[in-house]
């Protein structure tokens, strides 16, 4: 029994170490944010580098937002990710967006170089910024090409804008000042509803992101921002200077994409991801092939899961799911093993130092209330992205139930038996080993069980910081609004939690010392 536990521990620790990727010299890590276009661009970077360099490419797609990506890049957890110049200026440098695209690019380039040695490569050729769109047939009928054109006729029209857009100086308020854009009436709509409303012509103009695939689907025309009101959001690869120094070929190869993609192309590609439920791997390969940048010609698109139902989908994705399940279990097991290794001794120590007990347990309880995603994000500046910060965050969550149960279990173990054993000359060490611990074992195990279920559940969020696991299809599925994909992660994750709970429940009963039945 002890031997098995020992072996299991060695296995788990070994896994934890192996799973933490060592910074191999010939490895490059591509990151992306958690929306379709960012993932697609990152996948294109990755495939291009795989084909045209000797580097081993690792993907960390779907990181939770600008902050996470940027921190990860800064501390070297990733080497490159697609970013937008406007985002760099506004969200990272905290400056006001202004001026033509070249000015914005030059500004972020020089600042990022001098502050962090991060390189903006040549822009990819398109902008994904806020724009105003109108139904195509309206544009044709009224001869609308630019926002200035729209301002001529807008008094007769009905606007439908997102809540955020209406109230902002860099949104509708500013447009009114610069263009004199006044609508007959304005509706505040959820983004998801705007497109449908436009299709049904309940609204005549809406705010959009310029490369949104739904512009094609709903037959909308983007009006040119002829007075350059909206800040430019040019897409480009953002790369670590150190990476370029080590592997100059990264800059050269990614440079092949400079100026190669326009808004129309991006809309079409995004549409395939948004509505066609295709994987970014397939869409990226097609895009590279069309640009003539792919070496593999004629090969049909790789694995594409097209099931009729969720079961077919699960079956089709079984290989990936197997790998993700192992990854998920590994993350959880490593966090839990480390948690037990730390929390059980801590619980025992607190039982000896009771005046600290309440304070320490309360502090651990406070950690428990920190939202999981916030805790994960908090780890990034210290530990980067990937497996390590995920294990660290899960580890913190596992501590409270284990410490609390160890402490109370040992403290409350049959006080009369402990008293008698003391009076008959057992040493405190003997009492701990022979009486308190065996009697507390089921309680400690119950704490471990709680922690395990919690960890397996929370580990789905690890995908947000690129640690993989069953959260990966959930996160991707949410971004692609693909229910089958979401369920392909959620169902195994739930089953895993139930299995772990049942398994540890069995261990808990086995650990229950004989002689305690019916007490």
């Amino acid at each position, binding site marked *: 029994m002890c031997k098995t536990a020992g072996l299991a521990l060695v296995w788990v620790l070994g896994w934890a170490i192996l799973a933490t990727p060592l910074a191999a010299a010939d490895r490059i890590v591509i990151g992306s944010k958690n929306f379709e276009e960012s993932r697609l661009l990152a996948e294109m970077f990755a495939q291009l580098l795989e084909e045209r360099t000797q580097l081993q490419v690792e993907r960390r797609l779907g990181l939770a937002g600008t902050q996470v990506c940027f921190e990860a890049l800064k501390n070297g957890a990733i080497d490159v990710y697609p970013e937008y110049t406007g985002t760099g200026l506004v969200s990272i440098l905290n400056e006001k967006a202004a001026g033509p695209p070249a000015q914005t690019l030059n500004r972020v380039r020089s600042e990022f170089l001098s502050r962090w040695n991060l390189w903006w490569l040549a822009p990819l050729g398109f902008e994904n910024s806020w724009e105003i769109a109108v139904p195509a047939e309206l544009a044709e009928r009224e001869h609308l090409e630019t926002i200035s054109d729209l301002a001529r006729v807008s008094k007769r029209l009905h606007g439908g804008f997102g809540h955020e857009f209406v109230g902002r100086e860099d949104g509708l308020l500013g447009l009114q000042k610069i263009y004199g854009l006044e609508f007959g009436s304005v509706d505040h709509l959820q983004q998801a509803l705007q497109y449908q409303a436009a299709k049904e012509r309940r609204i005549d103009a809406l705010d959009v992101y310029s490369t949104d695939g739904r512009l094609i689907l709903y037959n909308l025309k983007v009006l040119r921002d002829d007075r350059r009101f909206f800040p430019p959001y040019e897409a480009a690869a953002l790369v670590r200077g150190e990476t370029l120094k080590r592997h100059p070929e990264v800059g050269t190869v990614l440079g092949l994409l400079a100026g190669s993609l326009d808004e129309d192309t991006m809309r079409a590609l995004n549409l395939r991801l948004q509505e066609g439920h295709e994987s970014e791997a397939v869409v990226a390969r097609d895009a590279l092939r069309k640009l003539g940048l792919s070496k593999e010609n004629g090969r049909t698109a790789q694995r594409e899961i097209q099931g009729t139902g969720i079961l077919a989908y699960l079956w089709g994705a079984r290989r990936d799911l197997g790998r993700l399940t192992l990854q998920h279990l590994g993350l959880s097991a490593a966090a839990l093993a480390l948690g037990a290794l730390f929390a059980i001794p801590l619980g025992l120590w607190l039982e000896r130092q009771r005046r600290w007990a309440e304070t320490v347990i309360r502090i651990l309880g406070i950690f428990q209330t920190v939202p999981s995603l916030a805790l994960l994000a908090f780890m990034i500046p210290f530990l980067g992205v990937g497996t390590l910060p995920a294990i660290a965050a899960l580890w913190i969550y596992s501590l409270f139930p284990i410490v609390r149960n160890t402490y109370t279990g040992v403290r409350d173990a049959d006080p009369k038996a402990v*008293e008698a*054993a003391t009076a008959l000359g057992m040493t405190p060490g003997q009492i701990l080993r022979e009486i308190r611990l065996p009697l507390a074992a089921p309680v400690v195990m119950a704490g471990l069980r709680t922690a395990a279920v919690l960890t397996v559940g929370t580990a789905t969020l690890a995908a947000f910081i690129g640690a993989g696991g069953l959260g990966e299809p959930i996160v991707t599925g949410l971004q692609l609004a693909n229910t089958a994909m979401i369920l392909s992660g959620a169902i195994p994750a739930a089953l895993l939690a139930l299995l772990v709970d049942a398994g540890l429940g069995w261990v808990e009963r086995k650990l229950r010392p004989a002689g305690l039945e019916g007490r």
Partner: protein
Amino acid sequence: MPADPLLEAAGVAKTYGDGTVALGGVSLAVRPGETVALVGESGSGKTTLLRTFNAMVKPSAGEVRVEGKPVSGLDPIALRRRIGYVPQDGGLIPHWRISKNVELVPRLLGWERSRRQARSREMLSLVGLDSSTHANRYPAELSGGQRQRVAFARALAADPPLILLDEPFGALDALTRLELHRQFLDLKKSLGKTTVLVTHDLAEAFRLADRIGVMRGGRLLQLGTPDELAKSPADPYVEALLEMRRV
């Protein structure tokens, strides 16, 4: 000339950190082979006094001597292994079989297995339990009276010169208690152990003890044979206590 006392308390006092006085300076001597009962209400200090004898409580003043040696100078672990102890509820270790419970102190003293097992069988039959039916059971599978017998067997297993009993019959029903009283008197006669018995039951003390010490508010009011107490109570409280017993 009486034999040297096996157990002595000289001005033993105990004041807790919060100022509570549990013992206000108690002196007594217990001779080899005699049974002394400490009687008093809860809070009288009788249990605290008992616990100073096996170093479970450290006196804040005064001295306890066992076999003439001051307890404060002895290793408490070694001392306790030479003093038998039976608490009110038996204090058996719930996940240990009866035999393992009885063998506790012999095991701590490093006796060999075969000697321990023989001793455990002997002790169980001494307290009236059949070793073949009970040795392999767990405490929860026994009745309250049986558990208390096991606790006595455990206390006697390593043949200690001194036995401390803390209300050992307190939680038993009347019939079982009478039966165990009878057993106790048999053991007393056959083993001749020096025993200190804490009880709140004066009748029990009269029945089982050679001498009785009446305690109240952390003081020993009187120590004497049942006859001496009955004939010449030294304190109005002792008198009242005896009066109550008569009614």
